[in-house]
């Protein structure tokens, strides 16, 4: 019974994390080693972009207890910022991408007053906030191209002989960026700040009583989450090569990462990444081959089953399985 109640998990030990990272890197290298075609690499690229946003969303929820329905705002701001910086100001793409993350952080600062809210009130405030940016992108047509969209987006460059605009190049770049973001997330979790933030997620009042500046810590997490989401928005813009407000600020960028993170286990570092890759590939490869039109219904069944059987997500299920085996051996 108790295993069905989500609980704050302690960060796992370094050796087990290293094993996890090793397995993840081997899995990441497999498609290239197996000579996967453009189609499969394209699917993995989309899945990794989703994984990046899922990670950023889980970071905010896990460290600080903030449930966001508005990550589309940071994704869209990052997309447009990098596209405009590189196309209109001529900045190198590899510089405009992190700058886009910084601009997404700037956009997140406007949300600081909402940090006083909690639970559904914060979620609603950030949802409304994302709509403001979509309307701004539509109305500022002299800058963004408005509803007609923006197409002249420079592609990713070639670095050390690796064409990052190619499918294999984009895939390698995204694996590296997702891994870096996961590392930052893991380091924050393990720090004292991370401990305080997880305590805030459990009881904000109690942590304030012991002298923790919860507002400041939550603001830092919001900024970090916005930065990561903005960077993935920027990378997506350069890979897809087209932006329009309805696409860049689509609710899909808010909802799908939540589904992926919960599926994988949002209280873990690798859960959101694994969840994003698995649900995207399951939907596009398995479900689509079974039901060409309306395949999303299979994904719905899978998610419902997952939430019922393993509310702590895929990694939670794996942990339960391993613990069961250890107990049996003991």
């Amino acid at each position: 019974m108790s295993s069905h109640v989500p609980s704050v998990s302690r960060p796992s030990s370094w050796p087990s994390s290293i094993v996890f990272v090793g397995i993840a890197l081997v899995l990441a290298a497999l498609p290239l080693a197996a000579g996967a075609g453009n189609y499969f690499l394209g699917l993995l690229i989309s899945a990794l972009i989703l994984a990046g946003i899922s990670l950023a969303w889980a970071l905010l929820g896990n460290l600080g207890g903030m449930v966001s329905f508005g990550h589309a705002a940071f994704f869209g701001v990052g997309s447009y910022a990098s596209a405009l910086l590189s196309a209109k100001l001529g900045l190198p793409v590899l510089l405009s991408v992190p700058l886009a993350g910084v601009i997404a952080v700037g956009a997140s600062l406007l949300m600081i007053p909402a940090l006083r809210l909690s639970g559904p009130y914060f979620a609603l405030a950030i949802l409304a906030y994302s709509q403001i940016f979509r309307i701004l992108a539509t109305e500022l047509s002299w800058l963004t191209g408005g509803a007609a969209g923006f197409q002249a987006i420079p592609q990713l460059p070639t670095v050390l002989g690796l064409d990052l605009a190619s499918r294999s190049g984009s895939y390698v770049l995204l694996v590296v960026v997702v891994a870096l973001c996961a590392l930052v997330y893991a380091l924050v979790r393990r720090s004292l700040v991370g401990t305080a933030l997880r305590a805030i997620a459990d009881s904000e009042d109690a942590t304030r009583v012991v002298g923790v500046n919860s507002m400041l810590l939550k603001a830092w997490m919001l900024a970090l989450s916005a930065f990561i989401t903005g960077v993935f928005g920027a990378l997506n813009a350069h890979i897809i090569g087209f932006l329009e407000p309805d696409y860049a600020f689509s609710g899909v960028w808010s909802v799908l990462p939540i589904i992926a993170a919960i599926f994988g286990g949002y209280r873990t570092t690798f859960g959101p990444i694994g969840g994003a890759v698995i649900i995207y590939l399951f939907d596009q490869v398995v479900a689509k081959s079974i039901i060409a039109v309306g395949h999303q219904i299979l994904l719905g069944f899978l998610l419902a089953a997952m939430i019922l059987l393993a509310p702590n997500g895929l990694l939670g299920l794996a942990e339960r399985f391993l613990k069961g085996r250890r107990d049996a051996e003991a």
Partner: protein
Amino acid sequence: MIRKSIVSLSLALAMAVGTAAASAEELLIGAHMPLTGSLARSGQTFTEGMQIAVRQFNERSDKYKFKVEVIDDESTPAKAVSAVEKLVNDGAVAVIGGYGSNIIGPASAASNNLGKVYITAGAVSDELTARGLKTFFRINNNAGYQRGVENLVAELKPSAVSIIASTREAPALLAKGLEQSLAEKGVKVTVHSFDPAITDFKPIINKVKLRDKADMIVMSAYENDYVGIIRAAKVLKPDVKLIVGVWSLATPKMYSEFPDLMNNVVGTSFVPFPVEVNDPEGKRFADLYREVYNKDIEYLATLSFVETTILLEAISRAAEAGTLDKGGLPDEMRKTDRQTLLGRVKFDETGDNPFFSLSMGQHRDGKIVLVSPQANANGSIVYPGLPW
């Protein structure tokens, strides 16, 4: 002896027919369409027109037979790009595009990178043809829709026009073009842009009624918006003489679903309803479409039929010339110059069809009468003419 000869002759004939059928080269074309989500109806109709074009072409071609593989792009750019890559991987010699410039842009760029011809009838953004892609072609464009409305305005000569435009890409582009061109012709134009999320149009109609004092309302929007705008106008009854829209308005389906709102409303159209098609190709298309889908041809199906037919003809020509595998298809596409159900189709250097133009049809008690331009009209316009 005679019996033996007949049997031998029959066998020889059967073998000859069998050999011809067996020697027909089978080619695959790919398509990505929005088959789920809010644009599913458009994607489905596009697919129907495409399937009929393939079937009709295969009926008359002995040498080349076509198969079509359709993938649902879910109106998502990344999935459309993946669909193109999968289709080409599966052996498609060319790709037919879906719906919306945000989808067509990245998908056609992916197709160009893979060296495959990409044709669409579902995106009007001018930026698409400005990219200089050698393999990109489209049969319709914003200018064609604009010309249709401009011709009507020139014939009716209203002194003031109110344009109610969605901020979505295609409607916004059309509204911008119309605002400029009608103002140049001395018509007083007021544009009211609205967010696609809006469903109550009474505040806008109030502005049209009290401030604009327009003779004509032009709606640059989509089906649900048309219904909301006309419903609000029916309540507030502004002193206008005509309500005009563009795509997907002058269709039998709109009248059958909203008979109280559609009478006398004008929209872009190719053919009147009941369908009157005179040329043999169009007649066969209409008959086959009715036989297979038990309904009359409509706007999107016609667009899709024409683009697919043109593509199949160009592929056959390239295959015949032995250039299909050597990148010769774009050149064959550029050699296209023929009359179609949409009028003349010929591609310029950018892949656009500068001859695209539309007629305007008016809902009349369940029928659609072509009323503009005069050269294509099969009846006179009711003007003033309103749904109330």
